[in-house]
């Protein structure tokens, strides 16, 4: 029996999560970004993302993209993986949005077939859009690849994000693995007991039932998790342990990040 849409989607989701887990391997490597305090990485890379969005010159955004590649190399991130999973996908999505700008932006015509024309300004606008998104997503991906998710959460807490929001994010990340695994097992078990071919309505009915059972399971799980928290002294106000320490190297890193971002904003204005 071939896999249906739901099963294929669930398996795809499980694979994506496995990849997310594997990405933590990069975070354990010894590289430039990994050697910096998590808060420095978070603030530094996000300030570069901000600089990318504020810069209006292709040359400046291009230089920031070069910085992103340099950071990736120094942090021992696999460039081939980055190209395949980030650059190509971003190019595909942003390209579709940018293409109309090639033809609709008024300006000096550089290519024309008589009915439609590409203008120099259109080409600049489209290129700037694609390059901006590529660069911003690369910086964000570097943060995720070089930092275990748990550390990102702690850094957000250190930056005064409400602890309730952080706890919610942490628990979502924790239990999404379990629920996706459960969903996969339920679908496999259903497939192992299904003989013959199900009609479309039958399949939809089965899927709706499975979704209902999974929802019930997740509700029961969340109730039990709350009880387990209560049993260990949780009184509605989450306490989180934070034990970051900044060194001279971290301060230097932070300074360089902020200088680069400020320079890019100033030169790209």
């Amino acid at each position, binding site marked *: 029996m071939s896999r249906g849409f739901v099963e294929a989607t669930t398996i795809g989701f499980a694979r994506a999560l496995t990849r997310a887990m594997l990405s933590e391997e990069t975070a354990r490597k010894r590289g430039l970004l990994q050697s910096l305090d998590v808060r420095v990485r978070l603030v530094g890379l996000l300030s570069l993302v901000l600089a990318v969005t504020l810069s209006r010159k292709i040359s400046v955004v291009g230089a920031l993209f070069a910085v992103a590649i340099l950071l990736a190399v120094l942090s021992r991130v696999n460039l081939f993986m980055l190209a395949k999973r980030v650059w190509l996908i971003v190019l595909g999505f942003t390209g579709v949005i940018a293409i109309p700008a090639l033809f609709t932006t008024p300006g000096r015509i550089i290519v024309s077939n008589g009915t439609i024309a590409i203008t120099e300004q259109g080409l600049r606008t489209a290129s700037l859009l694609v390059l901006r998104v590529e660069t911003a997503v690369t910086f964000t991906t570097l943060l995720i690849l070089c930092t275990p998710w*748990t550390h990102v959460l702690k850094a957000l807490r250190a930056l005064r994000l409400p602890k309730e929001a952080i706890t919610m994010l942490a628990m979502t990340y*924790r239990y999404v693995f379990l629920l996706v695994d459960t969903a996969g097992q339920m679908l496999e078990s259903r497939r192992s007991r299904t003989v013959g071919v199900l009609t479309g309505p039958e399949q939809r009915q089965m899927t709706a039932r499975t979704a209902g059972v999974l929802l019930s399971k997740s509700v029961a799980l969340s109730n039990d998790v709350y009880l*387990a*928290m209560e*049993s260990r*002294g949780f009184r509605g106000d989450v306490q989180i*342990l934070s034990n970051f320490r900044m060194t001279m190297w971290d301060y230097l890193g932070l300074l360089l990040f902020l200088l680069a971002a400020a320079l890019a904003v100033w030169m790209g204005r």
Partner: protein
Amino acid sequence: MPLFELREVSFDYEGIAALRGLSLSIEQGERLALVGANGSGKSTLLRLLDALCFPSSGAIVFDGQPLTAQRLQDDKFALPFRRRVGLVFQNPDVQLFNPTVFDEVAFAPLQLKWPKEELLARVEATLDLMGISQLRERPPYRLSGGEKKRVALASVIVLEPDVLLLDEPTATLDPRSQSQIIDLIQQWKGSSKTIVTATHQLEIVEDIADRVVVLEEGKVLASGTPTEVLSNHELLLRANLVHAHRHSHGSVTHSHPHIHSHSKHEH
């Protein structure tokens, strides 16, 4: 004075009775095993003892004080109670909700607002005691079943509770992981720690308990020493803890209860 006293306790889940007029006393320092078939009320009883839910009728007294929802609202009662009584859930996934093993073990001391230095030292000592120091940075989804159980246990014993409530601590574990958990429970023998273990694995009862309470459909069916209970095959058969084993000798077929234990293997 018993540490826990349950008087005619009943509890139901949305109309389905889980406990029916159960009465039981648990002394301080006692090692008690609650045995019974699935659905006999073992897990519910542990949750009531941990004040995670409260009887629909009857009363529970802990250390001379009534255990009620109202009292648990009061931090002055609730925080010392949580410090003194710890529950290890049957499903470790329920209990491991923190991003890493270290955070998991540190969770309870953090909620009880221990000083940071003491907290860190205690967490380190507990990780060492449980042999899980090497797992400190691991997220729960990268742990094996045995490791999850050990982390779940560590997350409770870090507080050094006076009362440890264990729900099926060795279920679904491989033999080595089972024996590690049993060894740990045995280490507390003779201490002032009260250990209440819910299990349907009769083969571990002699190792972990000095008294056994047999539950059936939310009531106490019998109570006695492990030897008394385990040798009463009729009782075990009635409580659905053993099954009738049938076999043939030539043309004659007969059946009798089937039980395994560490000290003997009898049919």
